[in-house]
């Protein structure tokens, strides 16, 4: 009987993908904490939180790039440059907070390095860190999209069982 086999295989694929992301250091145990908040009363909690993270992160990345374009030269000590670096620091703290809360470990670590460069008004260091941050964020986003697609497919595949089980249960009740 092949009913349900698809769901099991998809579940195994999901577990393999997660194991890979943990092994690569892309995610940490905080992602498991996030998953534990999901239950039958909030079945889409993880995907909702991650969607918000994607939306907010892209706004932050756009702001960070705009701010860096406004800063001229390394170790900019003038008033305006200091203001931009201050705003960069605020954005990075926000990014660090949200990434650490969903377990996005590599994204958070790059934010730390970025903030260090920003604290020293090191524009080149900041630009390198921003490129790395965009790269890590894109990788994370692609992999989590893959994970949620597998999850959706698994739900659909498992749904094929329900009519069979419901039919069998009714036969048992009525006999």
């Amino acid at each position: 009987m092949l009913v349900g086999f698809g769901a099991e295989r998809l579940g195994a694929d999901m577990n393999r993908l997660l194991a890979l992301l943990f092994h690569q250091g892309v995610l940490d145990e905080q992602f498991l904490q996030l998953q534990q908040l999901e239950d039958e009363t909030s079945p889409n909690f993880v995907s909702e939180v991650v969607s918000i993270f994607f939306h907010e992160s892209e706004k932050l990345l756009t702001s960070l790039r705009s701010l860096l374009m406004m800063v001229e030269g390394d170790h900019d000590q003038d008033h305006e440059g200091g203001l931009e670096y201050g705003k960069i620091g605020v954005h990075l703290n926000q990014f660090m907070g949200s990434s650490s809360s969903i377990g996005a470990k590599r994204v958070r670590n790059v934010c730390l390095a970025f903030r260090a460069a920003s604290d020293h008004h090191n524009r080149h260091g900041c630009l390198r860190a921003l490129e790395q941050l965009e790269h890590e964020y894109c990788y994370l986003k692609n992999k989590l999209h893959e994970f949620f697609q597998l999850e959706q497919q698994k739900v659909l595949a498992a749904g094929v069982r329900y009519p069979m089980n419901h039919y069998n249960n009714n036969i048992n009740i009525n006999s």
Partner: protein
Amino acid sequence: MYQNGSTETTPFRVLVVDDDRILRKMHKMMLTRLGIEVEVAVNGKEAVDLHLAGASFHLVLMDLQMPVMDGSQATKELRGMGVTSPIVGVTAACAEKAAFLASGLTDCVSKPLTISKIANYLPAPSNHTNN
């Protein structure tokens, strides 16, 4: 529900103050799963306004960097108003932890927030027995 030592059983109420939508959602879910009543504020001013309007909480979880009014200023104002509830700072900005604590916090923990980090400020659930 949590026993508060009186003859009444009142829900344990926590105020989550954070401008980050993700963190408000996660922290609220984390606490709601424990049967705790949660209210949220998006910045320090909202937290102060809630108290001015007469709200009270058994615990306040306060982010540091927020627009309009940050966590330090909000904590100072709440203490100035006579709020004695535990106010626990929750911050990713470790370098500013000392200054944040000096504003009147009971404690300060690093993000990500976990229940174990604030367990000391959450009461044990009641045993639901009648005495």
